[in-house]
């Protein structure tokens, strides 16, 4: 076993996990509070990447581009919520699935129209393009380290907001008892719009950070959306804590599995078939985990109280 490789893969796992968490946090709140299935969450992630590519081009600075992207995606989220999603809260899940599926088609096609069918590249400033020696002899890309850092900071901030502020109290109340916030005389519409915008901004943040390492392309939202859904289902819909733990778990399993499964499979299979089977099996492992969790706990690992109505 190569310990340095393992360390690197674990870091990569955290990095993917934290990206997933940024996406899952917004999605699980929307699910939990508004009882709304939003398949278009991945589109907001994609828009984050595209906005950032454009703004970075305009300003010649990734940092400025990123700073401009966040409010832009927030506003986009608010607009989408007000135009299309607001009326869907009272509908059943099937309607929500359909309508947000329509949104995905719209966003993908609009992106193709505006930015063209070919993917974009987000250039990084020099200091993020370097590698850092985490321990002597183990260089690690600075940008990936930055993602981990930002991810943890945002997770901490979110925890603070949800656990300590009035907004957080309303969010928690909403996730466990929807009627109650109505009874408190809170402007629910505003709260929902705000939460949706916040979730959009988080998705955008994930998108702009994923852009430079993956590629900025149409459809990038769909593949990660499914992973995100798996995360929130495993974590328990409406639970930030559950989303965090599940996201890190999925991130680690996916990355570490992908790089070490071939070696493990080699023990039982001939090399050629191990090499081809490994990626498929590691993709499947996540779904296997989800199946296992739901078979034992149909409400996920950390169901918020009262949600299981």
């Amino acid at each position, binding site marked *: 076993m190569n310990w340095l490789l393992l360390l690197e893969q674990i870091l990569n796992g955290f990095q993917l996990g934290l990206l997933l968490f940024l996406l899952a946090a917004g999605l699980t709140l929307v699910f939990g509070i508004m009882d709304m299935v939003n398949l278009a969450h991945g589109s907001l992630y994609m828009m984050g990447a595209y906005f950032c590519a454009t703004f970075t081009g305009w300003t010649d600075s990734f940092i400025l581009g990123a700073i401009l992207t966040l409010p832009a995606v927030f506003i986009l989220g608010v607009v989408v919520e007000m135009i299309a999603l607001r009326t869907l809260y009272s509908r059943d899940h099937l309607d929500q699935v359909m309508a947000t599926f329509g949104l995905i088609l719209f966003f993908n*096609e609009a992106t193709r129209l505006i930015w063209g069918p070919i993917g974009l590249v987000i250039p990084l400033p020099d200091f993020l393009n370097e590698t850092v020696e985490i321990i002597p002899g183990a260089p690690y890309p600075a940008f990936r380290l930055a993602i981990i850092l930002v991810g943890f900071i945002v997770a901490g901030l979110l925890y603070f907001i949800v656990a300590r502020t009035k907004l957080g109290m309303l969010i928690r109340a909403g996730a466990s008892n929807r009627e109650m916030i109505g009874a408190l005389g809170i402007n629910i519409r505003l709260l929902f719009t705000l939460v949706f915008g916040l979730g959009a901004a988080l998705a955008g943040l994930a998108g702009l950070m994923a852009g430079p390492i993956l590629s900025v392309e149409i459809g990038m939202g769909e593949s990660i959306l499914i992973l995100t859904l798996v995360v929130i289902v495993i974590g328990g819909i409406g639970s930030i804590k559950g989303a965090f733990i599940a996201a890190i778990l999925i991130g680690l399993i996916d990355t570490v599995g992908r790089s070490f499964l071939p070696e493990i499979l080699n023990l039982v299979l001939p090399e050629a078939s191990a090499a081809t*089977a490994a*990626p*498929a099996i590691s993709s499947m492992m996540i779904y296997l985990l989800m199946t296992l969790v739901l078979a034992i706990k*149909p409400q996920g690992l950390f169901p918020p109280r009262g949600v299981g109505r």
Partner: protein
Amino acid sequence: MTISSRHILNTALLVFLGLIPFITDWMGDSFYTGLVARILILAIAALSLNLLIGYGGMVSFGHAAYIGVGAYCVGIGAFHAFEDGIDWMLNGYVQLSAALLGSALIALIIGAISLRTRGVYFIMITMAFSQMLYFSAVGVETYGADDGLTIYLRSDMLGLIDLNDEKSLYYLIFASLLVVLYLMHRLVESPFGNVIRGTRSNEARMRAIGFSPYKYRLTAFVIAGTIAGYAGFLMANLNDFVSPDMMHWTRSGDLIIMIVLGGMASLFGPLYGALAFLMLEELLSSIPLTIGGLHVGEYWQLIFGPLLILIVLFARNGIDSFLPQPRKSS
């Protein structure tokens, strides 16, 4: 039973569909026979999914997976017959049995686990299972992985019917549609169908009056999966091609769109929905409008996406609500 204008409309549609090969012959353009055949196969799959969603309230978001399972049974059989000369694997009845049994078994496993959950969790877990199958197809290099398999030899039905003849294949598909329609009609009005519909309407009351819905729902899940597997068998023979993309979750989304488009509460809804879905695709993508050098038709989903939202918001029963309403029979 009285004959309503709805019956006349449905019958007219079926007669029209039955005449399609001759109409396209007359038009001299057999492309449309293939297109309609594809629509009918998707209609068969959508009909089976409607048993779950429309009648049973089980929003399964992984139905395309069973189509894939059925299709791969044909693809794999044809592959070994072509590459390795294993003739029995080209036998259509062997392939068909494999398609039906395989999809039934997989539906049984997926259903047994998924049906323990409710609501959003059910939607997500069925979607996750289908993605699992998708990724396993992607991972199998032998059978083409990402690129899929081209089928050089169609199923050999031992002289009973020649699937290489486009007309025979069309009529097999058409007859299958009729059978599935009739099957659904009987099923929905049978005691079994009543349990499925009753559970959708009020599960708590079903339990209170003495039903254990789980086993009935699981049975419905397996029936629907098996019919979708059969649709896959037909699809592989029609397209001469199978690929993991057939199982992608967005394909399952397409099937749900068809049901919603057509109207969930009616027997013929999925057929109308499948027709409308693919016609819309054809129609929108051939809009002869050019704005600023851009062909609008090329970006048809830009129109289709919002249209879908509008349909969900304002036409809850889809096409069904625009057709003459049948009187409530009972």
